[in-house]
């Protein structure tokens, strides 16, 4: 069952066309939404939530049309906004509980659910403190808690890991993984940090100037890779690339001293190890190169 169906979606503010004629069907468990600043990512999310008017075409979420049954969609969606969105003088429990009730939950159920969700995201011991006293990482977790309190079918996360320090970022990514693996909801992640998106998303949609420039499934993308090998050594580096090219394999050096070789299909790796053994070199890193999401993104930007 497709999660998000965009058929010719267009959004216009005054005379500026922000999104023009988006056509796509997104159906995987976790979807990455990428694009440079000003490509229209946030506008697309706001259009799906019905915050801003749609000027042309239609969009449907979980089979419901975005304009017509807006309220039903909003009760099925959990939204974690990008910028700060918290009520500073409320405690985490009362804020999450109120948001649950606003999504239609009964008061008692909302209270139980608030505690459960706050423990789950890891704000257990800070849940009675006012949100104004929370650190940036804790605020992101509180925003996540209010987004999942009413058990949404579709969770939209706008820059979930932006500005977090490493421990908080890892915790956020672990939470996102658990929610995806729970098979109970679909997740749309809109972010600039490609490493995070690569870790969590199956499907990727890349926007540029209001148009879709790339839409692919990351898993498939990874398999179709050419035979590139990347080698990192330790110790004397001079002359290693000439010797490799001497063996007949074209080799380039990138800025941090990493060697890139293009190998014929049926190549046996052991010849390189033998070569290194003779010179008593340490091959610290030997790996097949795949297109990282960054390269996919940069390629998409050229079109």
């Amino acid at each position, binding site marked *: 069952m497709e999660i998000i169906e965009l058929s010719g979606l267009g959004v216009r503010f005054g005379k500026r066309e922000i999104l023009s004629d988006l056509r796509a069907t997104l159906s995987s468990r976790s979807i990455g939404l990428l694009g440079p600043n000003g490509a229209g990512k946030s506008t697309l999310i706001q259009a799906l939530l019905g915050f801003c008017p749609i000027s042309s075409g239609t969009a449907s979420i979980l089979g419901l049309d975005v304009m017509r049954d807006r309220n039903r969609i909003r009760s099925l969606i959990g939204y974690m906004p990008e910028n700060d969105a918290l009520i500073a003088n409320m405690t985490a429990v009362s804020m999450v509980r109120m948001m649950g009730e606003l999504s239609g939950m009964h008061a008692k159920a909302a209270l139980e659910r608030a505690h459960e969700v706050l423990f789950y995201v890891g704000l257990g011991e*800070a849940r009675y403190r006012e949100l104004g006293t929370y650190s940036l990482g804790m605020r992101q977790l509180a925003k996540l808690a209010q987004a999942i309190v009413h058990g949404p079918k579709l969770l939209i996360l706008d820059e979930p890991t932006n*500005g977090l320090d490493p*421990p908080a970022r890892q915790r956020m990514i672990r939470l996102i993984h658990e929610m995806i693996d729970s098979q109970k909801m679909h997740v749309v992640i809109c972010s*600039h940090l490609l490493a995070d998106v690569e870790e969590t998303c199956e499907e990727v949609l890349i926007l540029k100037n209001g148009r879709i420039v790339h839409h692919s499934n990351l898993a498939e993308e990874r398999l179709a890779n050419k035979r590139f090998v990347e080698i990192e050594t330790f110790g004397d580096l001079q002359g290693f690339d000439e010797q490799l090219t001497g063996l007949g394999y074209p080799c380039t050096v990138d800025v941090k001293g990493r060697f890139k070789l293009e190998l014929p299909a049926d190549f046996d790796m*052991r010849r390189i190890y033998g070569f290194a053994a003779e010179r008593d070199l340490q*091959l*610290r*890193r030997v790996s097949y190169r795949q297109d990282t999401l960054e390269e996919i993104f*940069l390629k998409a930007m050229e079109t």
Partner: protein
Amino acid sequence: MNVDHITFDNVSRFYGEVLGVNRVTLSIPPGITSLVGPNGSGKTTLLNLMSGLIHPTEGTIHVLGIEPRDPRKMFRAVGYSTQFDSFPRGTTGRQFIYSFLRLFGYPSATASTMTAEALDMVHLTDAADRKIAGYSKGMRQRVKLAQAIAHDPQVLVLDEPLNGLDPLVRAETLNLFRKYASQGRHVFVSTHILHEVDMISDQFILMSNGYVVAEGQIQDVRSEIRDHPMQVTIRCKQPHGLASKVFEMDHVVEVRLHPDGKGVLVLTRAADLFYRQLNHIAMEDFGIESIAPADDTVKSVYEYLIGEDSAR
């Protein structure tokens, strides 16, 4: 106290009772230095001290031999882009930088040429005459960067300059840092994106709760951490054979088989020795596909020294 280093001599800074940084002693050479640490670990305080925005409660700092308390000499040598995403109201990009340069006492002509150069370096020339309020987050970061490099400083201090930038702009900015560092200047970058720290920085400073926990080259620091043996992941077709073979080496502490049955994780005390012997083992037919150090990165150093979720 050589003149092209930035030296901290037993510096500590308190905001009343709140601890900023405590007894920091550093001598930082030119090049790209990354400043890493959880939120609230004193990174911003260190950058503010280094840029002369605030002064230490005790201890002394010398930036390229300049005493930070003399604003006239200090701020000609230092450019600081703070983490605050705010600008004087109602100014355009060009006006903002032009008026900043006029504060230096530059005459109008020099100020406008320097402004144009700075804006061109961050590719903001076309949007220069629009109001900053209308800029996107990426453009605001770049105009801050332009302000920091406009007066051609020797020391560039940047607080999370890549925060919120999209990958394109991020790559451009990193190249700009490398160009600056290659000209023998100091570039300080405080960031949370650890894999970028590996990519760009010559040395790094790891801070936690106001103390400097580690500083120096990444590999050196990693090898100095004795209590965590080096981890190496090897993906191959016959993991069991390779595992038994590797176990024969005396410096190997632990070998773990990857659940997907196609990988081996080896923990060894002597990394150099292990890699040399690995070449010979690789000659036998284990079908080794890839070798990768699992924790030779700042991320693992971060985890070992600071712990996964010690700083909430």
